């Protein structure tokens, strides 16, 4: 069973439907016990990081997420969920994240010609390290992004894939061991996105970078 963590940060319908489409058993939950009991955990999220972190803590979910990752449960963060796993985000005047991956979440520079902020749309994801999540997907395939901030892992060994936008090359997929995060939305990325989720639903949490 895959637990989709519900902490009031955005719409979970599309994540749930995409997993149901690939015939995964899913439960949308805000219960720490249910998250700890799950075989796999998806940590989605859309919106501002300050409010999201406050809600995670208020629901007692921050501890459960840390423990899930420490136990080796395959864990996939998506969009805001990808950003929260880092130590620190520039958003909302500076917010401490879960600190599961060393690194920060800076803002895209504003005012560059041809680079509107937030980035909205399909952009290329170039694989930097082999990973079970990428099986059957061509490096350079486009995925759907909506974001104004981006993950910046401190350790290059945690950069699994990269994307170019607004004069930056950023980690569109990052991870370590059983933890993987995508800045894009696999659930909105058509066939390649469903393939990535299917790979996650089969992943044993091994074979990631820096094992």
């Amino acid at each position, binding site marked *: 069973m895959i637990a989709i963590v519900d902490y009031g940060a955005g719409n979970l*319908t599309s994540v749930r439907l995409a997993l149901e489409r690939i015939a995964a058993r899913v439960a949308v939950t805000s219960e720490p016990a249910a998250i700890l009991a799950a075989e796999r955990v998806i940590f989605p999220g*859309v919106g501002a990081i300050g409010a999201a972190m406050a809600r995670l803590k208020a629901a007692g979910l921050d501890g459960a997420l840390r423990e899930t990752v420490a136990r080796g449960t395959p864990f996939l963060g998506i969009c805001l969920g990808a950003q929260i796993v880092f130590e620190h985000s520039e958003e909302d005047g500076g917010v401490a994240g879960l600190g599961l991956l060393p690194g920060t979440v800076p803002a895209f520079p504003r005012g560059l010609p041809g680079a509107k902020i*937030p980035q909205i*749309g399909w952009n290329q994801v170039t694989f930097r390290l082999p990973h079970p999540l990428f099986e059957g997907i061509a490096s350079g395939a*486009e995925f759907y992004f909506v974001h104004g901030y981006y993950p910046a892992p401190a350790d290059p060994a945690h950069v699994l894939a990269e994307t170019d936008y607004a004069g930056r090359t950023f980690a569109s997929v990052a991870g370590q061991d059983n933890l993987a995060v995508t800045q894009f939305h696999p659930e909105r990325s058509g066939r390649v996105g469903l393939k990535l989720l299917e790979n996650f639903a089969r992943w044993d949490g091994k074979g990631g970078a820096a094992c």
Partner: protein
Amino acid sequence: MLTKRIIPCLDIRDRKVTKGVRFQNNVTVGDPVELAVRYCEEGCDELVFYDIGASAEGRPTDLGMVRETAQAVFIPFAVGGGIASVDDMRQVLLAGAEKVSVNTQAVLHPELIAEGAREFGSQCIVLGMDPVRADDRQQFPSGYEVTVRGFRQRTGLDALAWARRAEELGCGEIVVNSVDADGTGAGYEIELTRLIARHTGIPVVASGGAGKPADLAEVFRRADADAAIVAGMLHSGAYTVGAIKRELAEAGIPMRMVW
């Protein structure tokens, strides 16, 4: 590189996709979910549904259609028509839409944009606008006036001023649907699309007038549009999304070519 998006538009009335010129003489094109799946398989990057029946008759949006679509396609789609409150937005988003599109109701109640953006994030809120050419440059410096209620009512609002106000209020994207070009197949309204794209900081979607792939190439190149809406040229069977994309990719426009 971020690709330019091609967005088929499905106008819905009584659970059927219809196509007309300037909202008139509509003919039925097909079932919305079947068409959505077909256009997805052809490689479209996003979809937009306008429930024109709901808007005209003051009914809520057809949520059953939104749910079925969300179970069948896994790319972003926006839904407009009949959305008059934050609660209406919530229903449509929970049914599986990525974005909601507001038009007439946003002109009547601009705070709807701000409230929606606060509740769901700017990326969920699309402003649709239907501008028409207006000669009085004193009142309409952009040369275009915003109309509402399916082009039937003028508002006295200048198109560029309204776009900038909507951006300030928090909308995340603007669809510029030219009344003059809509349904003609004679090409997009380049001047106005460019004016809005250059004077706002959010993505601009060109709409109305596409008749051939070169029209899309022109609006991407000359008007800085981030995305383009197509309807008639697909509904008529004259083109597939894939054929349009291949032609644009050959012309050097960044396109998502694997789907």
